[in-house]
């Protein structure tokens, strides 16, 4: 596990979350890009990376959201470990399998958060199933984009570099 990579992935997820959520405040377009970053770290670098990514991302989100610090941290830690263990036990190399993992983790994470809030508040709040469905879909889509980008981008950068090198070598100085 590379700590710097985990921190970068979580930070990117958090910055994108806050920048894009500005356009969907109070609406039904719910998404959690930090959770997507946690699942990405878990599937890419294993359960321990997922666990630390979940702890870090969840605690920072809790600190910024004004709620009890630790609820999101615990939920995302569980989500990160679950995704990491799923990545080691099942073959999740295809795009569809990764999207399914993100979707399953999203549903589990949301239910866990609702349960933890019910314990803390001592009252059961309504679950917005439609919002959960939208969140699952959008997180899955974001996960697909993230995984495809991580596969395609290094290849694109390498081929661009090679193209530049070959054009330089043809020159006569």
């Amino acid at each position, binding site marked *: 596990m590379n700590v710097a990579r985990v921190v970068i992935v979580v930070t990117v997820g*958090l*910055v994108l*979350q*806050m*920048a*894009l*959520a*500005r*356009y*969907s*405040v*109070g*609406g039904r377009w*719910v*998404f*959690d890009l*930090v959770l997507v970053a946690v699942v990405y770290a878990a599937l890419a670098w294993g*359960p*321990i990376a997922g*666990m630390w990514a979940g*702890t870090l991302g969840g*605690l*920072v*989100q*809790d*600190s*910024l*959201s*004004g*709620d*009890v*610090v*630790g*609820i*999101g*941290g*615990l939920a995302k*830690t*569980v989500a990160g*470990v679950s995704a*990491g*263990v799923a990545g080691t036990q099942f073959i999740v190399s295809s795009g569809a399998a990764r999207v399914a993992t993100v979707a399953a983790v999203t549903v589990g994470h949301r239910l866990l958060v609702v349960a*933890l*809030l019910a314990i*803390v*508040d001592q009252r059961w*709040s*309504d679950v*917005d199933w439609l*919002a959960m469905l939208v*969140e699952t879909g959008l997180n899955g889509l974001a996960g697909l984009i993230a995984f495809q980008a991580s596969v395609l981008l290094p290849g694109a950068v390498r081929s661009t570099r090679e193209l530049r090198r070959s054009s330089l070598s043809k020159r006569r100085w």
Partner: protein
Amino acid sequence: MDSFRRTFVFFIVLSFLHVLLISAQVQSRSGMPVIKAAAFGVFASIQHLTSGIADLGQSFWANYIALRGVAAENDQLKKRVLALEGITQAQAAIVSQTNELEDLLRLQQSLVVPTLAARVIAGDPAPGADIITIDRGSADGVEPDMAVIGHNGVIGRVFNRPTAHAAQVQLLKGRLAAAAAVTEQSLAAGIVQGGAGDPPLEMNFVDVLRDVEVGERVYTSGLDGIYPRGFLIGTVQRAVKGSGFYSDLRLLPAVDFRRLDVVLVVLVKRQP
């Protein structure tokens, strides 16, 4: 197998620490102000940057590319301005008459509260948090617990300590938000709370003997010391039977929380 055991032990330890952290706050109800302030301080500057980049893109699109229909819109706006000028003059006449009556009756004149316009630069850090970040902070005179309003009504309040150029606003529709309120005609007092589902606002502890009508407007009563009296919160959508001598009302918010771009911070400090 060794790796699995190590992961499992790590997981148990971390989960236990999280539970301890949560328990400490639930007992003290004080939150983690230092951690929250530090996290917000770090991310506020990043939010300014990302918001600036997004606004630049939006501005380029709106001012140079998407200009179709601007002339027609301009004509419509001119007509609208004319109509509004008429309404403003009529309102000014009413205000003048009211002031004269207040003078005659020696009533305390209603004060116009000072406000500060602010732009929304970031949304929910976590889904369902119902928090926005604005680009005004302590350097502009923004302080914790100042009310934030829109052109239609109450939006929320400033919470946590603002940084120099950014502050977080807790939306009234949020799970942990509340405001003291009163209905317009029946004068039923109560507490408006967020997180009620659909519609998102609920007015609790309303005297069951008060005859509240559906469609009646609900305003801030000023009793909480945060929201000054007289700001519109929403309209009554339906009444729900509460417990004992109280009934609960479901309110449709006056503000469309999905369209928050510019807000006004009411520069009045919290009344003790």
